[in-house]
């Protein structure tokens, strides 16, 4: 929404500058987006007079002019044919930036004659007057007058209107708020009725659903044509194109009073009835800028924009010819067939009220965003139906002459807003403002609210403290105000939010053990632990493509977006891995293939709250720089190490975890992946190498290793009432180690042998470590040798050689039972 300062001053008696108005608007809740001030853009340009103009010695089409300027008399070379002695025009000094040309003037000779400045055309000042040559201004203008003043250009204020304030879509509405805020005095906005001189020959029909109320009148014998300059200037200043006087009047009132109107050329109407009804078409629509389908809708309209629109039963249609010919989409756009032209002699003015939701939907369905649609969708003042018509009549009679008929009204406007019982003390209670009740009520009155004593206090909730309670009725243009909290906002924003106190929140006891849930705290620990382990945290979208989701076990119908931002982002992710792998690929394509990334975030298995889980995933695409030290390359055991360290850090029962090899999901390499689980139904994590086929589908070069933990699956340690730990009781006896080598089938999991050895004597055996795995000469084909170091911790006495021998025998027996034969 745009307006100019002079337009505002039609309604507001004020000396305020554009800057003052913008500041006041901002603090009243009107967010100013942009102020275009020609005065500052054209600050360097001033009025000048040509004293002498002689032919350039070296160029036929150039003239050398002596010009009286704000900088004294200057010699300026000018190519315009109208550069003549006595002409008042606009001068730009050397150094000025000429907006229409996009250049800064420099002093340079033009065909041998130095030009000390420039005489400007309208287009060079971006104030196109349509004429050729330099500007021809009134001779009354003094030399040195700013060009913006001379051209009548003024600041245009562009601001955003929040959807609750349709009254701000008219300049008068802004004036009202600014007056209440003390920026000036509001002029009388009332509209005097214009009596009709004959009965209206056109009747109106409404069905009450499509259009609750429709008022109109005919003006006969008008003389249409271009509207006067003041009106054209006003519309052009805010970016509207003048059309003809009748249409321009409706646009003026739309922007002045937020009251859209429509004018019909009566000569083009069929019949004598105008009807507002619901559309008769099918439900589907085709936006106006696309070709209609082969199968046509029952009703269509060629609108004023020249496009054809399909009409659906949800739209409000204005129709003539006994209701059979659509001549407009009510409240959205009129039809081409009955539009007013310069030839219009009799005009019918429509002033109606349409349901905001219907208009909003029609706007969406048709893609039309007209000024009328914008206003009706946000609720037009229900009290402006007849006054708007009267104002249009007055202006049309002034500009086009003619004779008005009586007004005809069909239907009934929605009831005005009801009264709100209001105790001014509530302002302080809700906002904290210290403000006198009289001041609060004065602000409401200034904003157009009516204050009355309550009619029946005993029937209200305020019965006890009825003394100060009043009855506040919002004006018809403030249907957004529904309750006492809304009234507090009105008072507070006009009194100024700067007046609000700053009051410390009352202290509350802090939660024991911090404010985070166990899950939140673990996610936080995991983040810091993984970063410390050398992984960089990435954030990736919660979406992926459905195809990719399916590769990772997702892609269910209920997780596919109806309106994705891009087709490759159309499905909620079932895993963090695909996005991380994708990121690895992107980094590689940029020349940085070595990545270790992690993410902690939501994954989705359905659309219910409980179907969303928090995952912790990391990937490693190892391309570390070649080292001189021949260190072992990173592989799947690197991520296994990071995974186990992380699980330990977040308090998972690491010692009880089973490594279930070969049972991980299909997006892992089947021979190089495993689950970490407490049991088949309690899977905490999966890790391994990503399946080469999956990498190929994601177009990423392998190998990529990774893991993914489902945080909800990691059991939480029992909460203890006190923080003390069990007593520290180290054994005073030295631990001892014994080494064993077992031969086992090649496919035998080393972990099974370790588990068997550790289980041989849980009291004495502290740890079992694999220190060598060997295949080759000395070991039968298809077998391998696994060397174990067993750490024995004597408990209450040193072990004798016989006892150690017995323990060794137990270990050998246990491992043999598990499939490992002591190597001879």
């Amino acid at each position, binding site marked *: 929404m745009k307006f100019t300062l002079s337009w505002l001053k039609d309604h507001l008696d004020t000396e305020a500058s554009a800057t003052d108005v913008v500041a006041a608007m901002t603090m009243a809740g009107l967010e100013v987006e942009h102020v275009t001030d020609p005065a500052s853009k054209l600050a360097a340009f001033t009025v000048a007079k040509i004293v002498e103009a002689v032919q350039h010695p070296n160029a036929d089409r150039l003239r050398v002019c002596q010009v009286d300027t704000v900088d004294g008399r200057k010699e300026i070379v000018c190519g315009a044919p109208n550069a003549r002695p006595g002409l008042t025009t606009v001068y730009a000094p050397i150094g000025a930036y000429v907006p229409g040309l996009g250049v800064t003037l420099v002093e340079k000779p033009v065909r041998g004659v130095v030009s000390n400045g420039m005489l400007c055309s309208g287009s060079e000042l971006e104030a196109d007057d349509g004429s050729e040559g330099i500007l021809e201004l009134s001779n009354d203008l003094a030399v040195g007058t700013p060009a913006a003043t001379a051209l009548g250009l003024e600041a245009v204020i562009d601001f955003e209107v929040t959807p609750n304030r349709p009254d701000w879509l008219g300049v008068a509405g802004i004036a009202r708020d600014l007056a209440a805020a003390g920026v000036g005095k509001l002029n009388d906005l009332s509209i005097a009725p214009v009596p009709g001189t004959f009965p209206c020959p056109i009747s109106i029909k409404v069905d009450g659903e499509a259009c609750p109320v429709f008022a109109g009148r005919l003006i006969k014998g008008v003389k249409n044509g271009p509207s006067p300059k003041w009106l054209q200037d006003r519309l052009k200043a805010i970016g509207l194109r003048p059309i003809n006087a009748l249409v321009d009047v409706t646009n003026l009132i739309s922007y002045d009073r937020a009251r859209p109107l429509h004018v019909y050329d009566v000569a083009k109407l069929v019949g004598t009835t105008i009807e507002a009804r619901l559309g008769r078409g099918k439900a589907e629509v085709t936006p106006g800028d696309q070709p209609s389908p082969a199968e046509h809708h029952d009703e269509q309209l060629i609108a004023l924009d020249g496009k054809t629109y399909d009409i659906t039963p949800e739209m409000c249609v204005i129709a003539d010819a006994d209701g059979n010919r659509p001549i407009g989409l009510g409240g959205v756009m009129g039809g081409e067939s009955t539009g007013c032209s310069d030839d219009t002699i009799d005009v019918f003015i429509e002033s109606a009220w349409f349901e905001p939701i219907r208009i909003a939907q029609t706007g969406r369905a048709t893609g039309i965003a007209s000024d009328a649609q914008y206003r009706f969708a946000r609720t037009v003042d229900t009290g402006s139906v007849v006054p708007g018509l009267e104002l249009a009549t007055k202006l049309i009679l002034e500009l086009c002459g003619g004779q008005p008929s009586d007004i005809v009204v069909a239907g009934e406007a929605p009831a005005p807003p009801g009264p709100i019982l209001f105790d001014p003390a509530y302002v302080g209670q809700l906002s904290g403002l210290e403000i006198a009740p009289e001041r609060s009520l004065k602000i409401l009155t200034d904003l157009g609210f009516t204050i009355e004593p309550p009619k029946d206090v005993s029937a209200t909730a305020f019965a006890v403290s009825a003394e100060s309670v009043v009855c506040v009725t919002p004006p018809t243009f403030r249907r957004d105000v529904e309750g006492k909290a809304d009234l507090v906002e009105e008072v507070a924003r006009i009194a100024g939010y700067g007046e609000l106190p700053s009051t410390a*929140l009352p202290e509350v006891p802090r939660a024991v053990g911090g404010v985070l849930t166990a899950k939140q705290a673990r996610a936080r620990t995991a983040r810091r632990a993984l970063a410390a382990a050398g992984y960089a945290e990435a*954030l990736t979208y919660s979406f992926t493509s459905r195809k990719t989701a399916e590769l990772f076990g997702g892609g269910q119908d209920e997780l596919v977006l109806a309106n994705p931002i891009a087709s490759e982002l159309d499905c909620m992710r079932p895993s963090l891995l695909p996005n991380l792998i994708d990121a690895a690929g992107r980094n590689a394509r940029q020349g940085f293939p070595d990545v*270790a990334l992690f993410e902690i975030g939501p994954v989705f298995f359905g659309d219910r709250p409980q179907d969303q889980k928090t995952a912790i995933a990391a990937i490693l695409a190892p391309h570390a720089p070649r080292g001189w030290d021949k260190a072992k390359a990173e592989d799947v055991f690197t991520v296994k190490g990071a995974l186990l360290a992380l699980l330990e850090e977040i308090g998972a029962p690491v010692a009880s975890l089973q490594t279930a090899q070969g049972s991980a999901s299909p997006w892992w390499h089947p021979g190089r992946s495993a689950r970490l689980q407490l049991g088949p139904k309690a899977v905490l994590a999966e890790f391994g190498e990503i399946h080469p086929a999956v990498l190929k589908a994601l177009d990423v070069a392998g190998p990529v290793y990774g893991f993914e933990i489902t945080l909800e699956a990691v059991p939480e340690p029992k909460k203890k009432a006190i923080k003390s730990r069990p007593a520290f009781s180290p054994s005073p006896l030295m631990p001892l180690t014994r080494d064993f080598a077992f031969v086992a089938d090649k496919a035998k999991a080393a972990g099974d042998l370790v588990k068997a050895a550790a289980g041989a004597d849980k009291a004495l055996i502290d740890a079992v470590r694999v220190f060598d795995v060997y295949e080759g000469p000395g070991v039968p084909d298809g077998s391998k040798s696994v060397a174990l170091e067993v750490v024995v911790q004597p408990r209450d006495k040193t072990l004798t050689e016989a006892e150690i021998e017995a323990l060794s025998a137990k270990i050998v027996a246990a491992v043999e039972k598990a499939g490992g034969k002591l190597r001879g």
Partner: protein
Amino acid sequence: MTDLTTLEADVLAQVAAAGDLAALDAVRVAALGKTGSISGLLKTLGSMSPEERKERGAAINVLRDRVQTALNDKKAALEAAALDARLASETLDLTLPAPHRRRGSVHPTMQTMDEMIAIFAEMGFAVAEGPDIEDDFHNFTALNFPPKHPAREMHDTFFFNTKEDGERMLLRTHTSPVQVRTMVSQKPPIRIIAPGRTYRVDNDATHTPVFHQVEGLVIDKGIHMGHLKWTLETFLARFFETDVVTTQFRPHHFPFTEPSAEMDVQCDRSGGEIKIGQGTSWLEILGCGMVHPNVLRACGIDPDEYQGFAFGMGVDRLGMLKYGMPDLRDMWASDSRWLSHYGFSAFAAPNAASGLS
């Protein structure tokens, strides 16, 4: 005695001549071993008269001690020389690099979120969470968005496909549904923040389809807009960690608050980057207001008994402002160089003692 003097000179010369520990040991054995020359002399004492033995014994002992000392000294010298030689041979080129190590990092948005949580935790706010996939009631209706109202359109909502029963799920456009879930399930007093992912159909330098919000909610008796102003002023002053943070409250409109406000922070925009705590421009930074009575009612709270405030801020955007990241889209690009440039140390967990970052 001459024989002793000669022997001593001879043995000491051998000691001096010994080139390594083995040679020295041979000298020792030859002199002091069981059959050594000096040991042999000692054995002769038994056949002497007491006087003779006394004199001769003392002389031999002196000889033995001198030889022993010489042996010890030579041994120490040889060992030192051997060590020097070994150390010299063990020299490593320490200009060679240490093993490769990746430096991990915490994403700046998550660091920012941790900072916000730390500040609000200190003010007594608990942390609440809710699902990203929401229904219409929690995201809109309970928050006083009338059905089909244009305000809903302004939220650029991601929708899922409508089901057979007419239900259409959506991605939450704000974390306000968590406020609704909290108010429905918990009795006042309530003091929570709701951090999380939020979604809007939008993509440019200052909007990404996924972003993070931290919203706050305080419901109690007698909570008014002055408390809201203090809470946010205090938060922003602590968050930006500069000497002066100037803010202003400005009226605005949100369906779920009444009165509603936006908060601006004063900043300097000259030179293409935004500097908080300087300059004369204002930058909109968050939205807030008193919880609308209709929202309280929808959540089963009596607006005549309880009132309170709510606020919401973009975590990514505030992180951008604080740490000078120019483009919001980069935050989601996972470029390892960007992550390393803007990321934070694992050990920079925000706390009151050492600061936020």
